[in-house]
């Protein structure tokens, strides 16, 4: 398999994630879409790591996994905190802040 295939796949995943962030309104799903975008980045990193034959990209991807996990934890924490306070978390309804 040419490496380009993997990269095109990762581009496709990235674009899918970006579309998801734009069209979905549930914060939970938006977090999932962020995962998609980060995973796309990871796939690209690992592909390049394979292409270049060095493992730096893999280490980078590993660190990104940690980061993604941390973002998820915080994001879910906020969602749960909001749910407990009965705050509707439909991202478009977060318009109390719009001026």
């Amino acid at each position, binding site marked *: 398999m040419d490496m380009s295939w993997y*990269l095109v796949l990762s581009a496709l995943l990235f674009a899918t994630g970006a579309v998801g962030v*734009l069209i979905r309104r549930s914060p939970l799903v938006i977090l999932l*879409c962020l995962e998609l975008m980060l*995973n796309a980045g*990871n796939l690209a990193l690992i592909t390049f790591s394979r292409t270049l034959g060095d493992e730096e990209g893999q280490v980078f991807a590993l660190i990104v996994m940690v980061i993604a996990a941390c973002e998820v*934890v*915080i994001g879910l924490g906020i969602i749960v905190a909001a749910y407990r306070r009965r705050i509707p978390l439909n991202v478009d309804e977060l318009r109390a802040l719009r001026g």
Partner: protein
Amino acid sequence: MKEICFFAGAIGCLGGAIAVIGLRNPFYSVLALIVHLISLAGLFLLLRAEFLAAAQIVVYAGAVMVLYVFVAAYVGNVEESLWEPIPGQRWLAPVLGLALFVELSIAIIGSGLKSLDTEGPTVELGFGSPEAIGRLLLERFLIAFEAASLLLLIAAVGAVVLAARRREEATS
């Protein structure tokens, strides 16, 4: 053989991703993401990143997704309304996404890098093994490794801050 594996992985991966953004029930979206993650781990294996594939399954698909499932269950799987506040956003977003994809594809296909059109160089046996990764982490990327562990600590503190039940709340 490799081709078949790749396409199987790619279809699982992409199908999962599209299902994540396409399904209206957040709970199903979470399940779709699990499919996506497992397929992705398969692709990682094809790319000779064994350790990462394992980490992906154990940490991600295992631990993190469990968190998601719990939260989805806790918050309740409220169906999302189809009503859209900004008219046209629904079709505008895919257009933007398509543009992004085309742009990235141009970058990839238009690149003059020869190595992209090969299957990659032959690498020795230990490539992507826990040992190799671990050595890099402790030698060249020590700072990143330490910072990542600190980041986990901070995320834990953050979660505690966000989740802590206040006195007033407990009484009310």
